């Protein structure tokens, strides 16, 4: 099971260590530093590193490496999932998960880690339960505690810990009962240089914010549930009901949670919302290159494409880029060679373009690689897969909740090759 945890910042300092079994010397991290040195980018550090007596499993989040030390055969995914949970919990408690935030709350962090794992076994990882055990620090509470001498550790066994619905505490009360659901879809796609789609898939999630009194039992049904053939549910969803009726039936956790994530992979269901016309070329023997990019809407079902951001890693030989955007602003970082163009909204009548020249190092040969273009965008009020919620019903409680559903489409890893 998980033996120890080290937190390492971007400059390579171990700023926190926690051991759940015997103490493992921090020198074990030297193997990690070795691997880190070999990696060209911080992201390229391999997630599993063997050492003579231990294995190091790490994740990089918010520029902090979370390095778990394990000694015996443990499923690595289990460790990684747990580390993700640690990151989420910190973020949940402190708003941000930064070195400063962790150091500022080191005792709470320690208490949390102790509560999350016992002898390497996960104990309480649900945010609801943790918050009952250890109150998140807020300025007000710190003050009150200082004045009254009270504590931020819960004295009672969290109610949810052992019930059949461990994710929900009892005795929840709200004056305004509300349930909001956000259907968010991300398009991952690779478009080749001629504009045809090589792969395209949709990663969708339904995030919920449910603030309902008591023990509500909700059902959510879809207009077109057949879209969802590859789904991962929050533990609260009754799987049998879904199998039989394609209805989501659940007692929700209190507050924010991810109800469902899904994956739509069949390509004909994935609409590509924008097209890119590009011409990035270098001529042999010349130190100049041409850069010409035009964006246009493709399959948007009448909605407007907003918050478009184009970025591209230009070849290493490029010194400067002298470009002229028809709208928005662009930046070129001469060190990382990253070109970023903040386009904003695409106006179908006047297509945004970015044109100009790039200059190469004098005497440098024509670059070998073709830069890829990364696109971010947002489309409000639409789920690109066409998924639509039919209705939301509540049972078990008498009041009438306020319900809301929002749709949004974003670009995930949307890449255009040139």
């Amino acid at each position, binding site marked *: 099971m998980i033996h120890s945890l080290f937190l390492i910042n971007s400059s390579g300092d171990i700023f926190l260590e926690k051991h759940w079994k015997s103490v493992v010397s921090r020198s074990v991290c030297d193997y990690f530093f070795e691997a880190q040195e070999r990696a060209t980018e911080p992201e390229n550090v391999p997630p599993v590193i063997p050492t003579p007596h231990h294995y190091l499993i790490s994740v990089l989040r918010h520029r902090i490496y979370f390095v778990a030390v394990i000694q015996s055969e443990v499923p690595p995914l289990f460790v990684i999932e747990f580390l993700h949970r640690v990151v989420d919990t910190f973020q949940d408690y402190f708003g941000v998960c930064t070195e400063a935030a962790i150091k500022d709350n080191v005792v709470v962090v320690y208490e949390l880690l102790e509560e999350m794992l016992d002898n390497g076994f996960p104990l309480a990882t649900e945010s609801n339960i943790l918050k009952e055990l250890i109150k998140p620090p807020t300025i007000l509470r710190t003050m009150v505690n200082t004045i009254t001498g009270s504590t931020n550790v819960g004295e009672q066994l969290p109610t949810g810990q052992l019930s059949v619905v461990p994710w929900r505490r009892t005795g929840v009360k709200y004056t305004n009962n509300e349930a909001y659901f956000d259907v968010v879809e991300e398009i991952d796609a*690779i478009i080749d240089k001629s504009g045809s789609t090589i792969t395209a898939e949709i990663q969708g999630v339904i995030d919920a914010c449910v603030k309902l009194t008591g023990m509500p039992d909700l059902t959510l049904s879809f207009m077109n549930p057949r879209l969802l053939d590859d789904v991962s549910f929050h533990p609260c969803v009754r799987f049998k009901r879904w199998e039989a009726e394609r209805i989501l039936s659940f007692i929700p956790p209190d507050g924010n949670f991810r109800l469902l994530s899904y994956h739509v992979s069949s390509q004909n269901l994935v609409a590509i919302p924008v097209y890119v016309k590009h011409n990035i070329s270098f001529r042999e023997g010349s130190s100049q290159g041409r850069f010409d990019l035009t964006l246009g809407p493709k399959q948007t079902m009448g909605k407007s494409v907003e918050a478009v951001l184009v970025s591209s890693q230009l070849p290493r030989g490029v010194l400067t880029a002298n470009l002229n955007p028809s709208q928005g602003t662009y930046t070129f970082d001469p060190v990382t060679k990253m070109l970023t163009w903040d386009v904003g909204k695409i106006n179908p009548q006047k297509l945004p373009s970015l044109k100009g020249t790039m200059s190469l190092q004098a005497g440098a040969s024509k670059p070998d690689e073709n830069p890829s273009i990364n696109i971010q965008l947002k489309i409000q009020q639409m789920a690109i897969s066409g998924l639509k919620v039919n209705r939301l019903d509540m049972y078990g409680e008498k009041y009438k909740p306020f319900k809301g559903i929002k749709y949004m489409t974003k670009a995930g890893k949307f890449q255009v090759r040139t």
Partner: protein
Amino acid sequence: MQEWANQLCENRQFGSKMTDSKYFTTTKKGEIFELKAELNSDKKEKKKEAVKKVIASMTVGKDVSALFPDVVNCMQTDNLELKKLVYLYLMNYAKSQPDMAIMAVNTFVKDCEDLNPLIRALAVRTMGCIRVDKITEYLCEPLRKCLKDEDPYVRKTAAVCVAKLHDINAQLVEDQGFLDTLKDLISDSNPMVVANAVAALSEIAESHPNSNLLDLNPQTINKLLTALNECTEWGQIFILDCLANYSPRDDRESQSICERVTPRLSHANSAVVLSAVKVLMKFMEMLPKDLDYYGTLLKKLAPPLVTLLSAEPELQYVALRNINLIVQRRPEILKHEMKVFFVKYNDPIYVKLEKLDIMIRLASQANIAQVLAELKEYATEVDVDFVRKAVRAIGRCAIKVEQSAERCVSTLLDLIQTKVNYVVQEAIVVIKDIFRKYPNKYESVIATLCEHLESLDEPEARAAMIWIVGEYAERIDNADELLESFLEGFHDESTQVQLQLLTAIVKLFLKKPTETQELVQQVLSLATQDSDNPDLRDRGYIYWRLLSTDPVAAKEVVLAEKPLISEETDLIEPTLLEELICHIGTLASVYHKPPSAFVEGSRGVQHKRLTSSAGSGESVESPDTGSAAVSEAPPTVIPSQGDLLGDLLNLDLTPPTSTGPPPAAAPGMQLGAMDLLGGGLDSLMGDESEPPPIPLRTDTPQSPQPPHQSPSPPDYSPTELGGDIGGSPAMGAGFGAPPAAMPASFNAPISGGLDDLFDLGGGGGMTMGTYIPPKTVWLPAMKAKGLEISGTFVRRSGVIQMEMTLNNKAMSVMSDFAIQFNRNSFGLAPAGPLQILTPISPNQSIEAALPLSTVGPVMKMEPLNNLQVAVKNNIDVFYFSCQYPISMLFLEDGKMERQVFLATWKDIPNENESQFQIKDCHLNSDAASNKLQGSNIFTIAKRTVEGQDMLYQSMKLTNGIWVLAELRVQAGNPNYT
């Protein structure tokens, strides 16, 4: 009101200093001193703040253990937060202050009876984390209560505590019967308790290979499956991993388990998903392939695997490593999902490389066009490693999908035209492989390749190009010129290129003898006279002799038709693959190595194999039930290195006192039984020079010799001589100074070693030399790409030697051997390089002796005489481990003075003594003594007591530890004690 607002303002300013970072500020006076004062303050608040400061210092690795008594004093409090903080501190420092930690025990015991279940659980949990023996004694009673607590939260915490306690003191846990209580918890009404009990048992079982801890039967399985639906995600992982160890009785049970596990594939936690995949992959083997459900299951497996690939990169990496196994076992699952493995340019490099690997595995005639287009795209990326692998992948596609070979070659030619140096070199290397797979098909491209001759600067590419030129010399007009151009800088080339050049020129000569006589002479003299490299020299001489004696034979040898290279060389060997499939989701699956290869975590991991459905498995036994699937019969199980290791590890865990049933001893069995296993060795005692064994005393519970009959060493108490105990090595380091912490496991190998010696003792007393154990296969060919190593250890005139037979069972020549040892208990290290001068050609075997020194780095091994070895050759590096007989470490000067012996013998503490019995040794005491002397075991004194000969013996190990032994020989009784 105004006042309150003011105060609020003040506090807000103060607020910036109210974070925990204030705990790190230090004062000049000395932190510890100040904290001490604060900890002893009367004010509760101040105390708490002080403990927080202490914890803060602890988290950054500062030593605050000096405050132990002061912190422990704060423990008795009603304030839960303060209590928790003190507990945190205790867990960290109790080990360094065991005496002080006792002070905390009372509070723990009291807290275990608290009304609040949270406090009860906290107390039992914390106690288990304090790794101090004295405390664990006190833990037992509270733990027993908590395991039966009415509150499930306490029970589930207590379940984990048993695992903790087992880690500290396994014996105690067994004696107290906690294991049974834990087993009972599997039937608990609360799913969380069940999950934790399973997790705890699994962890304990890992260090307890033979115990039937997780005794899985249909009833428990049913309980687990019920709990599976209701417990937390983590609990689900434990339960699924446990389920995977079960072997269903028939296909119906298999199917019903699969049906109940399938919903887990939709879980949000990827670890749950992968564990479920493991269970399904394993149990699917049991299902008949024509079953509808089988097809449904196959379809259900694809989406969750694909979904894993849209997760974070580190999850993707683990998923990809596992998918790599899954597609090798069942390519049909993901055959339509090629596109999800296409690489995105901002994937981390470790994800890119794995995706590429799987793309090749999934490549088929149907999708090859797409794959090739992708690979070509990748070849223009920035990352050099990735580009190289992409180019190599194109070559592998050509070899795998025959229909695509032509396209691949033309793609490679396109890439060569880009003139990017490393792309060209890599392309040439793979084109060589394509030539080997499809000879005489794509020679038209040679001209293009030759254009790039000058730009090749990497040895592998140069060697590949030279091979091509040599192989097709008759079709290349200027082959001699080309090769001659390489010859100019012959001595600056790497060995690889030199060898290839030598062979190529010889080929050229055999094809065009008239024009190239001069060239071949030049290269032969370069190779044989001017080179220091033995490989090159030897090969040069062989060719020279061949050419000079019999050119026809030379032609037959050198220009012989080469076997085609196999379709996929990098597939995982089937038995290993089967085992790895059973370990999906584990570290083993990430490293593609059997769990036994993990030194640390593998103590006695049992080997798992897929059990196939009745129709397909064991075709010999069940031809009547045989369906059409007979071709699916599992490959013959050849004991892999892992098995061997497992055996050795197992035997080490068999305590020497066990009354293992001695197998019926058959004469000449030595050659068969290769392990040190106690029972096995007993059987060796009967041997060829003796008449078939005298009735074996299988369960001699009592030694003929009652205790306290050996008056001369009065302190020595021969203790209960039960079971088949042999020999009695007792140890004393130096002279009488008992070693501080002599590893307990020392006895086991010694007994093994002694048994070995006596085994020889039974050998008729013919040879007087050292005992040499027969050679054992250390590294089976299957594990090492065709290299088989067997060997033994021997001590010859004071020098320890490792004698090996290297057998090349592969298709290609092996050369460039080197050897290295891991650190080991006695600091064994090679005293010189491995002397294998000539490359080993296929099906040839070679003997090598490697002198060893004992001055290498020391690290305690488990078992003590374990040695981990790495052998490198031109193909790869291979690892194996073997065990050396302890006897080879006995020094020639191991004869102790009588007086010293007597004194030392007395001083040996009881705990350093152990006893063994050796059976059926038909030698009298003198013969035995002579025999043993051959192995540097010296008889110091001999006495006869009541018809028994007592031999007192000493031996000295290379690291200076003395081992003293008493040997009793009863006349007429073939048992030595």
